């Protein structure tokens, strides 16, 4: 119970402290201290009426105490005074005080384009998601020290380079918002592709915060919709440890309420006049759940997405829809124009179309190439099964 309350409050408490102290590391220390005090007191004295306010006030007081102690050590006085936005002693330290939600400012700080993408991802999970450095390191399969260094370097860069703790002005907002959404979607896909469901759930939590904080942003709604609709099929994607394709999935295992929520969010995004890439992706994800699938509409939406993103991966997905509409030959013709030699799904998609055309030798070669690019796991076993099915067939 306590752990959940902590996770839910971490982002708000930390953001408020960053705003107050102007330094992310200092804020993190203070927040950690407040949570430790809560862990000791709450089970004994009961949870306060406003846990968030209590945590922020306690953390502020601790930070002030610490800074006072450091001030008496004199050496750093000048720099510390510089770090304060205002003199904290003069502020009311009422535990029932309400504090504005500053998570949005913190999200934009964490996803600032002057930080490396992996640092943005780690920081967002740490600062907003409340994951520990150890949890993040395990989720991304890197050693603890690596992740710890990455986060520390990023925090120092925020401080030294003067990365703002603010919601960007209107002329920068669309671009910066795209960066935030991209980070959240990256976190989601890390959990999805690798079967580490925790990160997907974490990304959905982040997505929920984003629409709470930016209720008028169509793309934020669409991103959450896309994640929910994909996440709804988690249980059906595997049978034991084997991958199950969409057409073969047991629909009764789909989380109907997540799909419904996702559809509602798409509606909302459309009502907000959204026509960005996440709106289109969410609409496509939804279309894939309908039986029979409307390949014409899917191909049309991929074409629109292609125009926005210019991504060859989008063209590859359109080729799949075109293959359904006009036959594998037409899909293959589209694929052959693409330069995606290092992308495993490119080769598995080609292999599937070649197989359907009866070109068994070419299909085998493409499956083999896809396998070379695939890590051990369910996807690898799936491709191996397809390859061995073909080995009993010769070219027709």
């Amino acid at each position: 119970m306590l752990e959940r309350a902590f996770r839910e409050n971490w982002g708000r408490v930390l953001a408020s402290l960053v705003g107050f102290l102007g330094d992310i590391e200092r804020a993190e220390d203070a927040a950690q201290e407040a949570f430790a005090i809560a862990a000791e007191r709450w089970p004994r004295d009961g949870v306060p009426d406003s846990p968030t306010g209590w945590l922020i006030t306690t953390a502020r007081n601790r930070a002030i105490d610490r800074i006072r102690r450091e001030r008496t050590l004199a050496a750093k006085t000048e720099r510390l005074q510089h770090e304060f936005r205002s003199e904290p002693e003069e502020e009311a330290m009422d535990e029932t005080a309400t504090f504005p939600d500053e998570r949005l400012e913190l999200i934009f700080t964490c996803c600032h384009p002057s930080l490396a993408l992996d640092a943005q991802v780690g920081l967002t999970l740490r600062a907003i998601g409340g994951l520990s450095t150890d949890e993040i390191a395990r989720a991304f399969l890197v050693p603890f020290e690596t992740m710890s260094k990455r986060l520390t370097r990023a925090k120092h860069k925020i401080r030294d380079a003067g990365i703002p703790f603010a919601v960007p002005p209107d002329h920068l907002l669309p671009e910066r918002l795209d960066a935030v959404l991209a980070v959240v979607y990256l976190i989601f896909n890390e959990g999805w592709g690798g079967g580490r469901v925790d990160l997907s759930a974490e990304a959905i939590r982040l997505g929920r915060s984003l629409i709470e904080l930016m209720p008028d942003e169509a793309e934020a709604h669409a991103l959450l919709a896309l994640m929910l609709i994909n996440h709804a099929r988690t249980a059906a994607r595997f049978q034991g440890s084997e991958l199950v394709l969409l057409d073969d999935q047991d629909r009764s295992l789909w989380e109907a309420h997540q799909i419904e929520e996702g559809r509602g969010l798409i509606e909302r995004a459309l009502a907000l006049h959204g026509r960005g890439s996440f709106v289109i992706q969410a609409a496509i994800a939804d279309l894939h759940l309908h039986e029979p699938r409307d390949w014409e509409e899917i191909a049309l939406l991929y074409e629109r997405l292609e125009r926005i993103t210019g991504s060859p991966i989008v063209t590859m997905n359109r080729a799949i829809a075109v293959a359904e509409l006009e036959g594998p030959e037409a899909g293959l013709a589209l694929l052959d124009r693409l330069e995606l030699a290092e992308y495993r799904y490119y080769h598995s998609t080609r292999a599937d179309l070649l197989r359907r055309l009866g070109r068994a030798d070419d299909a085998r070669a493409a499956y083999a190439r896809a396998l070379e690019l695939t890590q051990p796991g369910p996807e690898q076993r799936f491709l191996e099964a397809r390859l061995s099915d073909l080995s009993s067939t010769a070219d027709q």
Partner: protein
Amino acid sequence: MRYALLIYDDMEVRDRTPTEERRRITAAVLEVLERPDVAGWLRLQDTESATTVRREQGGSLLIDGPFVDSKDFLGGFVEVEAENLDGALALAEELQELRPWGAIEVRPVREEPGLGA
């Protein structure tokens, strides 16, 4: 905060640009540098004019040329006073939009006497 904008030039592209066009670019850049948030700036002569001093085996060694020899070279500095990184980046973007070559690196100025010198 103070920031230094390090103005990098690409010699090949610059030299290919007609003189008239280069004059026009310089004038436009100089106009931006008149702003009150620009605390100062320097334009440097080409790297051919550089002499580099290194310390080697106890004595100094003079080298006839730049420290880093490449077609991209440091062409000047602009000192900017900005509220935060976004302010400095905005000015850098504005300057870079006027220039069809090179790039601008934005670096915060080290204010306290540090250990890195």
